[in-house]
């Protein structure tokens, strides 16, 4: 009969009304500014740039390859290459961005930049309190505002960060082994000719290899030092292109 369903519905909402005063656990509302919901790993808002180590500018993974700029559907990324290069975690010299801007009022949070980045250098953030009082300027984030440390990434996306770190450590280990093998081969070749000089070079190269994954092994003291010191040094050998991360 018409009306019974209506009465059932009224009873349900009536119970909710009364119940919400007596059973606080019924309430689904979070008092937001004071309380937050626990973060969800898959959540994403806007992109940020990841850096390793302490120095945000030196440890920046971005190589200014501009793949993300090309791929970005709303075209909210703006990159200018720097003329100066810097070494990456494998010690190879890479380009670095001079300007890296994202207009987050244009960004739609699709995450395509993250998908296409070959260097794991751009990731999606979980911050959402992004309001600003300036209609135009406040929403245009510059490189300095965009950088966040790999530790932070580990915090918000623990699982993914661990995987990436492991992969990168693996790369380093492989590169080391390769370098060592090369060094051995060279040493053998050089054993006939010059043996003393080669040993010194190999040692330096090895120390620079171990330095990069410093973020994952914060206790490894020589990492920053080695990174900083190894910058001016030329690559000791051709240590294979950093194995393309999936």
């Amino acid at each position: 009969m018409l009306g019974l369903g209506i009465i059932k519905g009224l009873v349900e909402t009536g119970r909710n009304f009364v119940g919400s005063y007596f059973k606080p656990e019924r309430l689904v509302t979070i008092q937001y500014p004071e309380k937050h919901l626990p973060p969800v790993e898959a959540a994403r808002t806007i992109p940020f740039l990841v850096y390793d180590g302490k120095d945000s500018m030196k440890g920046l993974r971005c190589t200014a390859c501009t793949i993300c700029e090309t791929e970005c559907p709303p075209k909210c990324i703006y990159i200018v290459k720097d003329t100066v290069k810097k070494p990456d975690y494998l010690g190879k010299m890479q380009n670095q961005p001079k300007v890296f801007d994202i207009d987050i009022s244009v960004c739609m949070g699709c995450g395509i930049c993250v998908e296409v980045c070959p260097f794991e250098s751009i990731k999606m953030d979980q911050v959402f309190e992004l309001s600003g009082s300036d209609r135009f300027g406040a929403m245009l984030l510059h490189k300095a505002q965009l950088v966040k440390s790999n530790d932070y990434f580990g915090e918000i996306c623990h699982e993914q960060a661990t995987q990436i770190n492991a992969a990168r450590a693996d790369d380093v280990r492989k590169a080391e082994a390769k370098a060592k093998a090369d060094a051995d081969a060279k040493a053998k070749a050089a054993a006939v000719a010059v043996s003393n000089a080669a040993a010194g070079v190999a040692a330096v190269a090895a120390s620079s290899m171990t330095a990069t994954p410093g973020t994952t092994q914060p206790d490894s003291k020589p990492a920053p030092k080695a990174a900083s010191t190894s910058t001016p040094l030329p690559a000791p050998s051709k240590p294979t292109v950093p194995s393309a991360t999936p």
Partner: protein
Amino acid sequence: MIDSLDQIFVSLKHWLVGLTPEAWQPLVSILVSIVPIMALFGTCFAATTIFERKILGRAQNRLGPNRVRAFGVKTFGLLQPIADGIKMLTKEDIVPFAADKVVHFLAPVVLTTPAWMLFSVIPLGRNMAAIDLDAGILFFFAVGSASELAVFMAGWSSKNKYSLVGSMRAIAQMISYEVPLVLSTIPVLMLAGTLSPSQVVEAQGVGTGFFAHWFVFTPWGLSGFVVFLIAATAESNRSPFDLPEAESEIIAGFLTEYSGFKYALFFLGEYIGLFAVAGMAVTLFLGGWQAPCKALEFIPSYLWFFGKFAVLIVFFIWVRATLPRLRLDQLLALAWRFLVPLALINLVVAALWHFMGSWQFIAAMPVRWGICAMLVVLPFVWFARLLNGGKVAPRKYRYAE
């Protein structure tokens, strides 16, 4: 003592009018009636906005607004209307470029003015109708129908397809539901024998002894009341009949291009219309300001009126919290295939009830009740079945359950 408490506002008005020079008394008398009504129902409007949101929230296991503070004091959100009001009034008034500016401006005014006028005939207490019109109920429906024009003006002048669709929906809905709305009141007018609201209320006080003689406590009255409530909900464009403003379909219907103060006026007009219809429902079916029995007459009449009024408003809010929106065809089918036939049958039932009132034999009362109740319930069930039609198969869930 009780009487003077009951008539305190009436005496106050007389005293105030008496203070002025005699030549000005007609004007002053009018003003003294209008100002309190506007103040009172304006406050009601403010209160209803916050309580509606509170109740809606609680009915959906949320908290509702609770954050407005005044000078650092927590008010549990009670000052929300003031904050809203300030926000509304200070917002930019945007008029679309293509809009018909004059009509666009006039629409909220045309909507709100008649809505306020509706209160003038509703008796808020004993001797407390602003004007005791002989044809008050006709006045009520006549003025109430003016809002259709306003809705049309709003929808058409915005030059926006959503607005136009919304206003067309609203007009179709209002015209359709005006028929059962008026038809459902006719039994009351027939049995009360008057078109004056105060006399209708008095007719419901006759013989008040142990049990209230409100019209809602008769078979035809109950049926009429239900039809009236449904039609009133639709007339005031409230959920589940809020198709004209369906946010999820046509943005906000005829309100789409309104902002700021004009939007607030529309908002006000709708709520005032709702109050007026609720007040009319109280007057027609729930005994107006009458107490349910002699023993309770020490409570002043206006308190009775506002008590019933508040119950109805809460009921409207409750319904809004519960029911989902209807489809347009369902809406019109409900009006023409369910409410109108029921209201028409109800006319006959009321006439029967009246004539069976002269029966003298012993079991006359139960027989009268039985026949009338049957004549009300059977068509209800039958039309409900027809309405459901059984065309739609029960929903099957592929994964759930």
